[in-house]
């Protein structure tokens, strides 16, 4: 994993030295204040968005944790400024994929999978700022108007999918994506570039470190490569993630982002510590969501990259779960080690004792395994599977 990251960074340095480079993103234009839709098209579109926001607000998938919501909003406001930030209503959704979007009525959707992948306030700000850039430039309307002249219905459906509440469409959108991306690409790359420029522009004028924008794309590329590699695919599937599918090629993008960032901002704080602290409660939950998607390469990459700032008990535990879930013989031996590392850092982490116990039993060490399970029950007597585990302890030998 680490080597792949180094290679990307190397390539980046090489190109940065070359002559063809984007200029530092200018500060955002003066904010014109609350915008009201104009004309039949726009007013009609807004009505659609209002309707879907109504349903979104009542959705089971929205995470209603006040602290988390306040924090994400705070990062958005720090990035785009308090005036702009007033126009936005943020909804955090329990969706394990990398995505965020904003519709032109001011509804911003932030997926939990995005929060898992960000390392700092500056990185999160980069994505939120990018989405806000689409909003400020009213790209939704432009895309709509451009599409109206076309007759490609599938392309239109992709457009709608991109505007609609993502929780409804992700799966079915994926089903039609192959046939529609060609069209979507051509149109939206310019808009994406514009949004990138604006997004980094906000960061340049904020107190956060604008260089983070480039890091987001490098990390994402490395994750996708890791995922593809572990699946034995010859080419990374950049279009497998909705957010990257319609966006400029990742490599080019990371370079552009780096060039757009104000070099004077490089020494600024990126808010990594604050970000880790704010996510502490949710990290194990989002990690569990990620692990159970069964994308081994991506999950292992994410865990290791989160651990770059230091291994913690939840990270070791997550890695243990990941390996036990895949469950090949050597995985189980590794899993046991990872659980042990977690327990060394936090001996009260009940689920780590459970994972350790199960892994040991499966690798032919039933006595040690049962001891670990006993510890698990001691720490978590009310566990939902306590009766099952207890039964495993009373048996002479443990068999399948």
């Amino acid at each position: 994993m680490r080597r792949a990251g180094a290679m990307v960074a190397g390539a980046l340095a090489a190109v940065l030295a070359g002559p063809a480079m984007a200029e530092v993103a200018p500060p955002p234009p003066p904010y014109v204040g609350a915008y009201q839709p104009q004309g039949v098209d726009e007013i009609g579109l807004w009505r659609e968005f209002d309707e879907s926001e109504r349903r979104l607000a009542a959705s089971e998938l929205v995470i209603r944790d006040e602290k988390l919501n306040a924090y994400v909003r705070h990062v958005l406001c720090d990035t785009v400024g308090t005036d702009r930030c007033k126009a936005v209503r943020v909804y955090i959704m329990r969706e394990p994929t990398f995505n965020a979007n904003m519709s032109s009525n001011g509804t911003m959707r932030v997926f939990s999978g995005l929060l898992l992948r960000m390392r700092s306030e500056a990185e999160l700000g980069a994505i939120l700022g990018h989405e806000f850039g689409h909003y400020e430039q009213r790209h939704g309307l432009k895309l709509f108007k451009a599409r109206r002249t076309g007759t490609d219905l599938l392309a239109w459906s992709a457009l709608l999918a991109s505007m609609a509440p993502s929780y409804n469409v992700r799966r079915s959108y994926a089903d039609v994506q192959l046939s529609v991306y060609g069209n979507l690409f051509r149109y939206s790359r310019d808009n994406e570039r514009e949004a990138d420029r604006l997004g980094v522009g906000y960061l340049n004028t904020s107190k956060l470190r604008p260089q983070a924008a480039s890091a987001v794309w490098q990390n994402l590329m490395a994750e996708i490569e890791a995922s593809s590699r572990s699946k034995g695919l010859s080419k990374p599937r950049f279009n497998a993630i909705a957010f990257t599918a319609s966006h400029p090629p990742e490599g080019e993008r990371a370079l552009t982002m780096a060039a757009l960032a104000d070099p004077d901002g490089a020494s600024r704080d990126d808010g990594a510590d604050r970000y880790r602290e704010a996510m502490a409660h949710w990290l194990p939950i989002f990690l569990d969501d990620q692990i159970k998607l069964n994308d081994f390469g991506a999950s292992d990459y994410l865990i290791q990259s989160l651990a770059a700032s230091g291994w913690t008990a939840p990270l070791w535990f997550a890695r243990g779960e990941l390996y036990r879930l895949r469950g090949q013989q050597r995985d189980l031996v590794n899993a046991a080690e990872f659980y042990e590392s977690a327990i060394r850092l936090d001996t009260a982490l009940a689920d780590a004792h459970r994972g350790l116990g199960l892994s040991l039993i499966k690798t032919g060490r039933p006595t040690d395994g049962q001891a670990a399970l006993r510890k698990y029950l001691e720490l978590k007597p009310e566990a939902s599977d306590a009766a099952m585990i207890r039964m495993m302890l009373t048996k002479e030998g443990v068999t399948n």
Partner: protein
Amino acid sequence: MFRGIALAVAAALCLVVVPVAAQEKSAVRQDFELASNSGKKILVFHPSVRVGSQSTGGIFEPNAEWTDRARTNIQAALEKYQKQLGNAVITAPEAYGEDARNLEEHMQLFGAVSQAVIEYQFFVGNRLPTKKRDNKANIFDWSLGASVADLPGAKDADYALFIYNKDAFGSTGRKVLQILAAVGPGIAVKSGEHQGFAGLVDLRTGNLLWLNADGQMGGDPREVDGSEKRVRQLLEDFPGSNLDKDADK
């Protein structure tokens, strides 16, 4: 539950999922009768009415002014005809927080039930054996459950009129257009085929008393006349209806 998804994938491959002509469009619960002028109160939950036009490229363009006009017109037409039928229409109070989430869940359930009715009881080619038997015995037995009694506004009414726009993104682009163009209670502007369901639910038991799942509807809801025609069509099979079925054909 995986087959639903498999079906959706299959549907994406062949444009037409449910041939409208091959299905019945409405049904009434076997033990339900609503006499004219019985003075029942019918609760309507925020009807999602969307009106737009279709460009040459076949794109639906939502139009807010039309939508507002249609919503007002349809509401007025509903009130007018229900009054003729001797019933009163009550608009449900705006719901917030837990109430709104509960309502949303019931709306989704109504959608799932309606789709099941259409897929497995109405649609000739796909009837479940037990539903086929029900059809022979004139049985139409579906429910949302008694928890409907706790929905906002339910205490003040006898029945609820549920209105559902079928999820636009279940299959293909063509379908998306059709459904986006659909407005309100199975009511639609001329923009291809429209699927929307309207159902009357007993607010004590949750039983589905009547379901209209018409795929093809006429009338321009932007105009008062059109809205009335639309609502008349919607209600022509409504229990206790004395509306002239042939008036608009």
